[in-house]
Each structure stands twice: as structure tokens, then as C-alpha cells.
């Protein structure tokens, strides 16, 4: 008598039930269409991406700070922060800089292109826990992109927050993103401060380091009050968030109320490829959003 083994199979399912634990969905991506493309600067464009299946679209929900993996078949797949409102189930907005192979290809595509979307992945900014607080949103460069989803959340629930400040630094005025929204933000009673490293002939705003404005904002706040009633989100290059978090740390603001979003190379978004590890922490699972205390405990973080 011989012992013939039978093949057990894991079927790759077609329908999406949003069960992230279901093994068959590992390689599943929603087919989505780029419905609109707005150039924002010379290198960055805003892409509106709509999941084609209406049920899947309605079922897709995310929290501010989470990211998706965007796939261009045959070209590549990469992580991008969702930059739109978490409560609107329309198109997802991704603001993408042409930086490498796939993003440059994307830069040349037009409306109607079909892409794959999987996710959402990763941790988020706990905007609900921040209710009742004054909110400091600090962005350097492309850092305004992951910050835009929490900005939208705060705007949509404006009455639940105290004073809201957005402080945004960019290299030059032509690098500024989302210019068309500044007036709207201000109308929602948000203090918007923008500073550039280098002005141009039309620039009338401040020129210098973002840290100057942050120091002034902190000094304005009356002592103890600040550290007891503020939550901060800091997004930008590592040097910037390091400086900024140290300034905030000096005010006595608890590190658990300061949040950053970290970027690493990613090939899966699902804790399997190891490319995103910081020390031995998976940025795609334990991040990209970390509180500052966690960052201080990550070897290799800064």
C-alpha cells in the first residue's frame, strides 16, 4: 500500500470582505481608477483614486495617518499616505512626488489609468484621543501630505478641539503644497503659519527656520497650560522632527502626546519583507505613526 498525499489548497478569493486576517487576501488589490490628477508643484501631483467596485469602495475605511500600497501592474508597488478625509467614502487622495521608477511612471499617466490599491495599513494619529486639546500640526516639506488627513479630521469636528495651529515649512514658495486650501483652513479658525527657507520676488511671508515659529508659539502659550492641553503631530524629514520634538519636549509636553510619521523602504506593507525595519521594529505594522517615546526607544530611528 502506498501513501499518496493530496494537495490542500488556499483559494485566492475574488470578493473582498475586508478581513485583513484572511490569508487569501494577502496579494489581493482593489482595482481602482485614477479619476483626477492635479499638479501641485513641479514634482508633486495630487491623484484622486477611486476603487471601482461600489461595495468595496463603501467598505473601504481608514484612519488618518494610515497608508495604502499603490500598484501599477508591471511597473511597481509602493506605499503612500492617504491624504484625504477619513470620513468621506469617495475618492482617496494621494499626493505623490516623482522620485523613482514607479512614481516617475505615474507622473506621466493620465486620468482613467487603472491601478491596484491594497490596505489601509499601519498605525494612525489618535485624533479622537486628542479631543478637548489644543492641536499643533507641524509639517516640513512633503510632511504636509500625511498631515492632511488629520487636518481634515480636525476640521470636520472643529468644535471638539481647542486652538488649532498648523505650522508648515517648505524650501521655497514654489514647493508649497495645497495652496488652494489655506484660505479654507483659516476660515475654520485655524492659525496657519507658513515659512520658507528661501523666498522669491512675490513672497511676503516669513523666511527662516520652522523651529523659530514653533519656539515663538510655545513661548506665547502660558506655561503649564501648554503641556497639559496640547497634542502635537510632527511630520517631516528626520532632522526636522528631531529638532521639533526636542523643543516640545522642553515644554514638558508628555512624549505620549507627540506623534511622528516615519518613512522607510517598503515592499509589502504587511510585516513580511523586513525592508521597513527600524532596529527590529516593523514600520509598516508598528508605524508609520509612532509617539515620541516609542521613537526614542527605537534603535536606528533618528
Amino acid at each position, binding site marked *: 500500500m502506498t*501513501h499518496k498525499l493530496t494537495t490542500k489548497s488556499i483559494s*485566492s478569493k475574488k470578493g473582498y470582505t475586508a478581513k485583513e486576517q484572511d490569508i487569501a487576501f494577502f496579494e489581493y488589490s482593489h482595482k481602482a481608477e485614477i479619476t483626477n490628477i492635479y499638479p501641485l508643484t513641479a514634482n508633486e501631483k495630487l491623484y484622486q483614486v477611486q476603487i471601482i467596485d461600489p461595495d468595496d469602495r463603501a467598505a473601504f475605511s481608514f484612519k488618518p495617518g494610515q497608508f495604502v500600497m499603490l500598484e501599477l*501592474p508591471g511597473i*511597481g508597488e509602493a506605499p503612500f499616505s492617504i491624504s484625504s478625509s477619513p470620513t468621506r467614502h469617495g475618492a482617496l487622495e494621494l499626493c505623490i512626488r516623482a*522620485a523613482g521608477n514607479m512614481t516617475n511612471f505615474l507622473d506621466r499617466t493620465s486620468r482613467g489609468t487603472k491601478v491596484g490599491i491594497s490596505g489601509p495599513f499601519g498605525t494612525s494619529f489618535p485624533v479622537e484621543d486628542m479631543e478637548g486639546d489644543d492641536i499643533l500640526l507641524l509639517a516640513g516639506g512633503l510632511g504636509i501630505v500625511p498631515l492632511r488627513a488629520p487636518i481634515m479630521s480636525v476640521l470636520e469636528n472643529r468644535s471638539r478641539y481647542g486652538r488649532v495651529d498648523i505650522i508648515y515649512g517648505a524650501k521655497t514658495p514654489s514647493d508649497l503644497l495645497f495652496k488652494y486650501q489655506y484660505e479654507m483652513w483659516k476660515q475654520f479658525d485655524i492659525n496657519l503659519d507658513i515659512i520658507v527657507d528661501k523666498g522669491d520676488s512675490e513672497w511676503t511671508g516669513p523666511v527662516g527656520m520652522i523651529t523659530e515659529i514653533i519656539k515663538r508659539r510655545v513661548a506665547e502659550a502660558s506655561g503649564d497650560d501648554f503641556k497639559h492641553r496640547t497634542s502635537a503631530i510632527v511630520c517631516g524629514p528626520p532632522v526636522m522632527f528631531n529638532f521639533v520634538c526636542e523643543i516640545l519636549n522642553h515644554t514638558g509636553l508628555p512624549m505620549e502626546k507627540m506623534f511622528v510619521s516615519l518613512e522607510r523602504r517598503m*515592499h509589502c506593507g504587511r510585516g513580511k519583507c523586513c*525592508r521597513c525595519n*527600524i532596529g527590529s521594529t516593523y514600520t509598516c505594522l508598528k508605524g508609520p505613526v509612532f509617539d515620541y517615546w516609542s521613537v526614542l526607544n527605537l534603535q536606528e530611528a533618528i
Partner: protein
Amino acid sequence: MIFKMFPAAELEDLFALLAVNRIIGPISKGLNKDGHELFDFDHVTDFSHLKIAYTQTIHSAKKFCLPHHEETSTFTFTGDDWQKEVDFGAHQPLVLFGLHPCDINSLNKLDKVLMDSIYPNPFYGAKRQNMLIIGHSCTPQPACFCQSMGTDTVLAGCDLFLTLLGDDYFAEVHSSRAYHLLEQLDCWEPGAKDHARFRASIEKRSDSFTNTVDTSDLTKILDMEFASQVWQQWGERCLSCGTCAQVCPTCYCYGIEEKVDMDLSRAVKNKQLYSCNLIDFAEVAGGHNFRPESHTRLKYRYYHKHRGFVEAFEEALCTGCGRCGTSCLAGITVPEVIASVRGGSHDA
């Protein structure tokens, strides 16, 4: 646990019972430059090719559930639309015949991160769940330090584990499939004498390890010595070739690459096992590299295996098989690296 005994000569009958399936086992791959026989796991059709008394294989058995190269999905283009087809790549069951304890334990470790965690990986799982594994006892080699890593014995992860006691096999029966197989052999229930022989054999083996690693408080020590000079010294020797990860039974990191066919009608998404020692492992678009120097990458490999994985799963991502040290052209071995890091900066 159920134990059985059968005559060692009947291993061939066991092989024959399973031979309708694809059997993977240790076979000879010629001699190395010092005249020692080299072994590797491969497809075995003829029992006489099976080298069951092998020392160690060059590669581990991970390639049968974690291939070095895998086509994860294909796309077909029609007009401006496309369809994605995903193939988890489990086309036939495999019998792994003669795995040593460390290699069985390496699969158990991979299961923890690839199957028993969030987003289980179906490419691995589909192949992994289609394996029948027969373990076999081994003789500790000079590079082996599995005893220090707690992987020198098998508690789970195989169907059957065989320990050679002279002319007989002592069989640990881990599954009903294995139980049914043994029903076809001339088995007997081990008695007190057999138990004594088994104990004597495992004691002798335990005493014959010559290589050790001190893992006590290692997670803390790795944190304390993160900035230690010794890493730089190892980094200067490391060639950043990635060989260690290729032969390692527990390394699983990878890269994804997509390619369009010449006629633009089809594209594939390929997964290639990678190595954290390769220079662009953590390089991002625009050219920034989070680990530009070789010592930071080498350190990361140790850090992931002996700290991060321990933190997550209470065990190291290393079986102590010693393959990485044996294959490394620069002669970098785990016991030496860890001893030097434990020694602290002044000893280096």
C-alpha cells in the same frame, strides 16, 4: 506521545511507501576543496541516493516553502484594463525525508512570523501545509551551536522523528499520518531497555557539542552595545555579499520587482529573497540609505535575529545551524560575533 521501534533496514520500506509522492532528501553534491563530501536537499527518486547519515546540507529546506525566486502574480493587459492572477504556488505535496532538528525548528520559527501573525503569507503557507516531514537524528558538527539556541531537539513541526540506535530506529510519532505509515513496518513498542538506549544516545549527543553561544540577557546586551566598536570591525570584514542570508534557514526578507513582457500583453510580479547585508536593502527613492555602511547592515541582521525576534516570539531567529559561518568568505560566525559583542567595546 506515541513511540515505536523498527529495524533500521526498514527505512527503505518507509521510503518506498512514500515514493508515489515527490520526496526531498539529502543527497551528495560532490566534494569540497578539502575533500569533504557536500550535501544538499534535492528530489530523490532512488533510495540508494538518499544520504541519510549526512552531516549538514549547504542550503536548508526552507527553499521548498520559501523559494529564492517566486512569481507571485501575473497581469494580462487588454486595452487600458488589466487582470491580476495570483498563484500561491502549491502544486504538489512534498515529503521532506531526513530533516535534522535544527531545520525542523527553523520552519517552526518561520511559521511564527509568516503564518501565525497578522497578514499570514499564503505563498509560504500553501506550500508549508502540504508537507510531510520525517526528521532524523544527527551528529553535532564543529560549527553547530543549536544546543545554545534550544533547537537541538524537536517538540513539534514534523510527522515522525527517527533516532538511530544501532541497528534500530526509535520513532517519535507526531501525527496520525505517520502512525498509519508505521503500521506497514515491523514495529514494536519500545520497552525499558529501548528507553535506556534512547536516553544513553541523547546524552552522548548532548555531550558532544563543542560550539556554544551565551544567549543570557542577550537582548539587553545588544541594546547596550549598539554603538560598540566591535560592529565596525566586523563590518570592515563583511563583503556585503548576502551569502549568509541565502543559506540561512530562518532568513525570510525579500524584494518585489515587476516586469512587463516585451509584447506588452503580460506582466509578472516577482518575489526574490533578499539579504539585509546587501547595500540597497534600506535605500529609498532619491538615494537616501538608512544603512549605508556595511557594519550597520551586519549589526541589523544580528539585531533582528537575536533581539527583535526574541522580543516578539520569546525565541531567537537563529537555529544555531552554523551555515552562515561555514559559507561566509570572510569567516564571520555567529558565536564569534556574539562573544565579541558580549565582551563589550574594550575587549575588541
